[in-house]
């Protein structure tokens, strides 16, 4: 058993009420599975619009490894 870091931003972080947490994972868990786990933990995210970043790259596929970073990114509003 090892962990990865999940980060939440903007409107999403207001729903999760945390900016960051460690998630226990089994090796080679897919990005999609990590997302599903979080959506179960925070059901209100299911109706929200977001992109997922894996190690700071936008993606919705691929496998995670221990120590990786997954981020939930609502629509950007910089500038």
């Amino acid at each position, binding site marked *: 058993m090892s962990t990865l870091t999940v*980060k939440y*931003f*903007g*409107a999403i972080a207001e729903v999760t009420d945390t900016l960051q947490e460690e998630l226990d994972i089994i090796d080679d868990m897919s990005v999609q599975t990590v997302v599903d786990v979080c959506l179960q933990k925070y059901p209100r995210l299911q109706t929200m619009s977001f992109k997922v*970043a894996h190690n*700071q790259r936008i993606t919705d596929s691929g496998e995670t490894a221990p120590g990786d970073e997954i*981020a939930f*990114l*609502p*629509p*950007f*509003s*910089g*500038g």
Partner: protein
Amino acid sequence: MEKKREPKKIFIQGAIPVEKIANSIANHQHKTNIGAHDIFLGQVRADEIEGKTVSHIEYTAYEEMAEKVVHEIREKAFEKFDLTCAHIYHSLGKVKTGELCFFVFTSSAHRKMAFEATRFIVEEIKANAPIYGKEIFEDASSQWKKNTPVS
């Protein structure tokens, strides 16, 4: 273009001071191969939404990722346009209405390149950098800002 450019710090706590912009302009006066600068400045508007007026914006960001994304946008700008230099800054934290939150500055021998590069960088950052603005109204209520594609 062969020189490898390192990612730069882009975030500034609070509003972007006018002095920073002035210093940035002054620092280019020894680069005598430059013929044109184009500077974009984003300023926080006192928008009125359903009878409430914006008092300031609170900016947050996925800082490390945003710096990577902005670095890549900057590299792309150097590939696409014949630039001498490009500077990019964005605020974090509280920026009041009327204050500056976004500063993009490109320079080139020729104006066409500077015009196009600044606009390219601004649009790309708005579309792709994980930066968030929360509009705080005068009554302390708030809403998350949403970027429109080219507004």
